[in-house]
Structures are given as structure tokens and as C-alpha cells.
């Protein structure tokens, strides 16, 4: 596993973030770092603002206060072409896939390829086919429209699109929810293989305790409107906070942990 050394390359840096909707404050003074090459799991209760944090990092929401930098740049300060350059280094898997409903799966994966590279159509087709196969989708799925896919298949198709440009960092919003345990384990394995071989950085929002145990190098817990702790799973589990303790020491948390211990 990756050791916490002081001189690590920071890909995402969030400082003093405040997010609010009208009078409702979701984040207050939130700090978070994501280091290059790590798999960071982000957990938190429903409505604790995990997805809002993701949108803030991606520049889809302007923070009410504080700063968010991605590859050392603040997306909101950049001219459009520089912003696109940064964005093409990120892959995002949205919670419900966010596939373009008027395009087939293969066309969905080809969109970033055709927009950001000089590939010919034939090459793009084959690269897209490779990504779709990597995401463990059957070849005949390529020509289907998102409305013809099950929830799990949509998720994998969205992963194929997120990986299309071989990004340096992927943001995954609950990637394994809606997958059966076998598919979820295969998903974890794929993410880990890609991280090991490509040095991929992974920011993963998840409720899947098995994923946290299996692949996450560090776990960040969002509670009380900020990141209360971000460290290795062992240290997080021992962290002294009622919510964190309930999360990991509750019946489900213990079950997932003990399975890991047995293995």
C-alpha cells in the first residue's frame, strides 16, 4: 500500500470549502487532499454532501467560500481552452451513469475520443470496443441505447466512457451500487489493476464497505459538514467520533471487516 510521506504529489486540493443552497449550509470549512496514485474512498451519511463535494471539485459548482484546485489549477479562474485541457485529464462516473440517451454505448464512449484526440473513426471504434470490454460488458451491448440497459450495465458503460481517454484521475460516484457482489468485486479488481499499472488516481464515493476494505488506500469521512478524518482504513476505524464508530462498528461494518480479516 501507499505510505503517507510528506512530499506527495497532490492532484486535488480542497481548502476551507463552503457549499450552500440558500440558507442551508452543506459544507463548512472542508479540507481534503487527493494524492497521485491513490484510491481514496469518500464515505458519509445520506445527504452529507458527498456528491456536492464531487461537483465542487469538478467545477460544476462554484464554492461559496474557500478554494478547490485540480492539478494545481482553479477551474473557475482558467480560460476555456485551459479548462478543457484539465477536464480531459479527468474521467467521471456519475451516480446514474449520465450516459447520453440519444447515443449508443459505443457512441457514448467515442464522444471523448473523437473530441479530444486525432484518432480516425475506425481506430476510435476499436479503442471504444476495448474500453467497453474492459468494463466487462458483452460485445452486443455496444450497439444498444442506454434506455435498453439495466442499471448495472449503465454503470459499466459509464465507466467505459470515464476511462475512454485513460484519464489521470477518475471520480466515481457510488460505482458499485446496483451491481451484484460478483460484478462489484470485478469492478474493484479492475480499478485496482488500472491504478497499479497506469498510476491512476481514484476518488470514489461509496457506501460499499467491501470496496473500502478491498481497494481503498485512504478513507475520508464527511460528517458535521466537513471531512472529520482522512486516513488509512485502520486508523479511520479507530477514530473517536460517534458517527464514524457507528458506521464501521455497526453490524454491517463489522461483517465486512471480519470477512476481510478471514481472508
Amino acid at each position, binding site marked *: 500500500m501507499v505510505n503517507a510521506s510528506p512530499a506527495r504529489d497532490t492532484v486535488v486540493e480542497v481548502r476551507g470549502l463552503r457549499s450552500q443552497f440558500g440558507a442551508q449550509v452543506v459544507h463548512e470549512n472542508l479540507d481534503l487532499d487527493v494524492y497521485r496514485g491513490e484510491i481514496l474512498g469518500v464515505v458519509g451519511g445520506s445527504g452529507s454532501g458527498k456528491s456536492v463535494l464531487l461537483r465542487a471539485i469538478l467545477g460544476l459548482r462554484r464554492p461559496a467560500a474557500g478554494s478547490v484546485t485540480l492539478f494545481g489549477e482553479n477551474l473557475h479562474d482558467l480560460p476555456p481552452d485551459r479548462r478543457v485541457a484539465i477536464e480531459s485529464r479527468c474521467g467521471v462516473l456519475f451516480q446514474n451513469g449520465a450516459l447520453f440517451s440519444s447515443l449508443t454505448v459505443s457512441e457514448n464512449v467515442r464522444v471523448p475520443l473523437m473530441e479530444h484526440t486525432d484518432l480516425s473513426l475506425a481506430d476510435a471504434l476499436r*479503442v471504444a470496443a476495448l474500453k467497453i*470490454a474492459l468494463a466487462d460488458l*458483452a*460485445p452486443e451491448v455496444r450497439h444498444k441505447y442506454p*434506455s435498453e440497459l439495466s442499471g448495472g450495465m449503465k454503470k459499466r458503460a459509464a465507466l467505459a466512457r470515464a476511462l475512454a481517454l485513460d484519464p489521470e484521475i477518475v471520480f466515481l460516484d457510488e460505482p458499485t451500487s446496483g451491481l451484484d457482489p460478483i460484478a462489484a468485486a470485478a469492478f474493484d479488481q479492475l480499478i485496482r*489493476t*488500472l491504478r497499479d*499499472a497506469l498510476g491512476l488516481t481514484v476518488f470514489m464515493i461509496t457506501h460499499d464497505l467491501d470496496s473500502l476494505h478491498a481497494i481503498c488506500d485512504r478513507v475520508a469521512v464527511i460528517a458535521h459538514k466537513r471531512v472529520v478524518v482522512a486516513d488509512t482504513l485502520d486508523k479511520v476505524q479507530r477514530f473517536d467520533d460517534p458517527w464514524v464508530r457507528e458506521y464501521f462498528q455497526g453490524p454491517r461494518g463489522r461483517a465486512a471487516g471480519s470477512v476481510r480479516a478471514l481472508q
Partner: protein
Amino acid sequence: MDRASTTPGLVEWLPLPATGDNVLRFTGDWTLPHFAALEAQLNRLKPQLPERPDVDFNAIGRIDTAGAGLIAVALGPKCLQYLAAHDRDVPRELRALLDTVSEAVAEIYAQRPPPRRNFGFVDMLADVGASISRVEALGVKLLAFIGLTLETLARGAWRPKRWRVTSLVAHMEQTGLDAVPIVALLSFLIGAVIAFLGATALQRYGATVFTVDLVSYAFLRELGVLLTAIILAGRTASAFTAQIGSMKIGEEVDAMRTMGLDPVELLVLPRVLALMIVTPLLAFLATLAGVVGGALVCWFALNITPSMFISVFQTDTPLHYLWLGLAKAPIFAFLIAVIGCHEGFKVAGSAQSVGERTTSSVVQSIFLVIVVDALAAMFFMEMKW
């Protein structure tokens, strides 16, 4: 790290200085920007390679899944399996990547390309036939839906407890009250236009006073209700389709069914009844606005004063013309609402589908409104009403 500023990858089939055996040596970056060049190199080398060449990845730069995919295809599954099992020189991470990618590649090669569509003459005929049978099926389905709506209405009519009064009033406001400005304004303008046309045509015969009759006949019998129906088809049928369609996508309609609620009773009846109540009112308003528009043009362009306009109107225009016009309003309203709701229920899956169904509901309802209006005009003429 800029994507463009990388060194393109290189692959060579060279003898090792130490042993003299040939080895496949990979250098540089094997990444997506160099995809075409990398593939060309591999294809050039491929005929010379033995089934299981020795490989050297020690000097390779960056590699991504696209590059790994190319290598996996070139080396073939046997060689990759051997590498995974034996070659300790290849770093563990790279072996895992090649392994993962080669599984994916094997799947791609295992399947056939999708059937190509021909665009020949026979296909065109088949398309024509298919769309005609679609129209037929659509007609049958629409009739079935109308039947279902009427049946639900008949069943619910005896039980005042099941009447959805709140929903009914809300829809009356949205489809009726909110449509007043647009209906009134457009009818007023069309009334003015008809009066101008009449004035121009009748001036040659010195019969400009009959412009009054032209405007009043046109609006009382036809235009008042027809304009209203067309505006409502564009405004309300589309809204009904989009509302019910997005509920269908969000599985709200399924949720209703599982709770033992009848979507037709909850969603369709209030909309249909609301539109049937407000359309005659809107049609009356449209008739009024159209006649006022005509009267203003008569006053300013033809010097027919409003009082003169009214006296000609009273003597020349039979009252039953108004009833003939307004009698069509509930029928149009029923058609528009039922088509809007029916198309909403046909939405399946995606946002794309909502758009298609909405277009279809507007086209169908305008088409049917005009067809029914033409039939009614012929019928009234034969009956000498």
C-alpha cells in the same frame, strides 16, 4: 504532463548483444495520442515474429489501456499467458494490465460485426409498409385508450369521493386561465387580418360593409374554436405528454400501480375533464377577441363605427352560429387531452423518447382537430344549419 508532449513509442525486433537471440524491445510512450503510429509499427513487425517472442519492457515509458490493447493483440493470448506465468522481467503491474486487456481483446475478436443496414429500394418499400402498419396500430391503440378513459370516467362518476377536485382545478388553471392571454391576443390579431382581407376583396364591389359578416361568420362558426384548439394542441397536449412521460421514466406510474392507484383515474381524467371544461370558455373568449379585432379594423380602415358594426352584426348573424362553433369545443378538448396523455404513457426509457412522443402528440392532435373540424363543417352544411 501534457498529452501532446510525449515521445512516441517504438518497438524493435533486435538481437540481444549478449546471446544473439532476437528480442522484441518496447521503448517510448505507448499511449492514446500515438495509437495509429504504434499500430502501424506492430503490423509491420508481425509477420517476422515467432509464436512466442521474447519481450523486453524494461525501457518502456508510459503506457495506457489503448497501448496495452495493441500489444496484447500483437503478441496474442498464448504469449501473454506465458508472460504472466513465467517472465519475471516484466513488472507485476504491467503483467496485470496486459492480462486484463487481453481478456477484453479476446472478447472483441470473438464476436461478429453487426449486420449492415442496406438502403436499397426494397428497404424503402419495407419502411413504407412498416410506417403504414404503425399508423394503423396507433389508431387502434388510441381508440382503446379512449375506451379505457371513458370506462374509468363512467366508473368514477358515481363515486364523488373518488373525484380529484384539487387536481382538476389545478389543471383548469394551468390549461385554461394561463392560456387566456395567448388565446385572446392571437385571435384578436387573426380577426384583424380577416377584416383586412375582407376589406380588400369587397372594396372592388363597394360591399365593404359585408366585412362585418365575414368576420362574424368566420369567428362564430369556425375560427374562434379552431384557433383555440390549435393553440391548446401546441400548448397543452405537449405539456400533458411531457408531464406523464417524465413520470413514466421516473417509475412514478409503476409506483402508483403497485399502490393500487389507477394512473388513468389519477392522471388522465383530471386532465381530460379540465380541458373539456375550459376549452368552450376559451373558445368563447377567442371568438370575442377575434370579432373585436375585426371591429377595430372596420372602424379605422373602413369607417364602420362600432355602433354600426354591432347593428349589422345583430341583424345579419344568427345566434345559433355561436352554438355550432362552441359545440365543437369539448370534442376538440377531449381529443387533445386524450392524445396528450396517451403519448405520455407511451414514453419509454429516455429523455429522447419524451421529445419524440411530445412531437408526435402535437402533430396528432393538430391533425385530428383539423380533420374533425372539416367533417363537422361538411355535416353542418348538409344539414343547412
